[in-house]
């Protein structure tokens, strides 16, 4: 492949996470991290819209209101109003616009992703900021962070805020059920007895700036997106596209695979995804792999916003030097020597890879690093 990352990115300034917040089926950021480390799951066996599938809904129905969600996020980020200026770019990342607007036959404009994003940015109190919407399917969050790093690197904005949310809807439940992708009993990523994915709900916001980081700070030191060019909905069978995204991200970070302390997998708990990821990880990390986790047994698949939420939670775990266990995982049927954490383990090295993949052959990876 001719695509390679220039070494000029290996400079003193880094993309720093200066603030973040999530709302997940497990609660706020602090509640979610605690629940992950305690091995709790918010997945319910339910029958949404008449379909016997598992879901991971918000703990309170009122969270399904985007304004309420924005309020729950901004409550965790008291400094957020200080970024409401022309020096800030808000990137809204989601796989889809308002499915509720499509379901109820509202004006088409209401369903467009960019309009939903602008309304969300306003609800967050960021109406004076500039706006962009990125939609790379279920890899949207990392793709948006990857773009944010470019805007910051070139000093086009002082601050870039990446945010997004996803809700469970009739549209998504019927759609994924039609693809036979939903588990009736709950997602069990990488487990040999898995039976499919679980849809979840979530929202996340991360505030990024380019500057010299302080000791102990978590930075995003590399990121990349790639395409499998293989299938419209399924992942590539050999994992080469995701492996390429990991390789590019590591190169941009200036660190070797053996310096990675943990991996946050996409881990949807569908057989094709899990097998693809196992191949990608083995291709990059070989036989001696760092511990890897999927959060989707705890809180379901949060779609396009998922990789914002999961990046934030991964950064919180890296700070604590603790990797949570993969809920529902006992024993894998993957042939590759992947090292899925069944229960919480220590993160021994100060860097973590965060992975995502989506329909259309989209792959994404970013590297979190603690400054030491």
């Amino acid at each position, binding site marked *: 492949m001719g695509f390679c990352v220039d070494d000029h990115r290996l400079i003193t300034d880094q993309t720093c996470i200066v603030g973040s917040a999530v709302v997940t089926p497990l609660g706020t950021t602090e509640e979610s991290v605690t629940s992950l480390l305690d091995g709790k799951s918010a997945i319910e066996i339910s029958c949404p819209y008449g379909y016997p599938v598992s879901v991971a809904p918000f703990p309170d129905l009122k969270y399904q209101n985007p304004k309420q969600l924005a309020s729950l996020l901004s409550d965790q980020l008291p400094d957020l109003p200080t970024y409401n200026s022309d020096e800030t770019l808000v990137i809204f990342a989601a796989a889809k*616009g308002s499915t509720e607007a499509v379901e109820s036959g509202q004006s088409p404009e209401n369903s467009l992703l960019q309009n939903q994003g602008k309304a969300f940015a306003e609800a967050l109190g960021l109406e004076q900021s500039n706006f962009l919407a990125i939609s790379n399917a279920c890899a949207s969050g990392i793709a948006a962070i990857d773009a944010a790093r470019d805007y910051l690197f070139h000093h086009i904005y002082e601050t870039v805020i990446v945010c997004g949310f996803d809700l469970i809807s*009739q549209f998504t439940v019927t759609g994924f059920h039609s693809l036979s992708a939903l588990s009736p009993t709950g997602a069990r990523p990488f487990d040999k007895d898995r039976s499919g994915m679980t849809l979840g709900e979530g929202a996340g916001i991360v505030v990024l700036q380019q500057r010299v980081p302080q000791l102990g700070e978590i930075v995003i030191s590399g990121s990349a997106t790639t395409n499998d060019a293989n299938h*419209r909905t399924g992942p590539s069978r050999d994992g080469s596209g995701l492996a390429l995204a990991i390789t590019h991200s590591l190169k941009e970070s200036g660190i070797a695979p053996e310096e990675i302390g943990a991996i946050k997998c996409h881990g949807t708990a569908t057989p094709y995804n899990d097998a693809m990821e196992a191949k990608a990880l083995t291709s990059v990390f070989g036989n001696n792999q760092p511990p890897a986790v999927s959060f989707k047994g705890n809180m379901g698949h949060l779609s396009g916003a998922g990789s914002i939420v999961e990046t934030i939670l991964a950064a919180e775990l890296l700070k604590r030097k603790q990797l949570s266990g993969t809920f529902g995982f006992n024993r894998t049927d993957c042939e590759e020597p992947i090292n899925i954490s069944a229960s919480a383990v220590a993160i021994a090295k100060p860097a973590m890879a965060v992975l995502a993949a989506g329909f259309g052959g989209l792959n994404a990876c970013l590297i979190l690093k603690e400054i030491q």
Partner: protein
Amino acid sequence: MIASIGSFALITPREFISPAGAIVHPGNSLADIPRESVYSEPYRHFGKMGDTEKLMFSAVSLALKGISIPESTGIVCAVPNGSLTTDCAYMQSVNEQFPSPSLFAATLPSSLIAELAIPFTLRGPNRVLAGNDQSAVLLNALFLIERGCDFVVAGYVDPNPVHGSAAVILLQQTETHHTLHLDLQRKDSETIPDLFGSIIAELEGRKHFPAIKTRIGTFHIEESHGTTH
């Protein structure tokens, strides 16, 4: 940031414009694009694509006619209407009979990426921008060039049969000093409604294409020879 222009294409309800010249649209609408107008070999999946994907695939085919680009080529694309038509068709299938898995699989603004990546074997970075901020498309394409991507396919697609269009510019790494200067505003989606159309109008009829160079400021296009910023 600087990149050469390798090729381009613009498809409107009235005409097709590419380095080969401008021709009157031989079909009746954007949804009716004769295959032989844009590519020589049949692509069997073409008939299964939605309107957005067909139009973008056609524009990219037109731009890449006779050009070989590497697997590492990136794609940056703006989709003002997302997957709206397919969303409504899918919801109709839910309400009227049973949910269609094939329609659901195409209900993403990013669905068109697979329709470009698979037939042209493009495995580089991808960014799909929801909206019609064409200067953001160009800027993000230049970001990818600057990060080491040798080629990037940049474009937008609006399949509206009356006033829609699709445009593609192929960018590539360059050492040339023969440039088009594009000073991109930050909040430019309102002030540059047809950036790609403006650039393609500048390129039409040329035998050799200049490079694109950007800085953030007030938008204008001007050509210079042998100078750099």
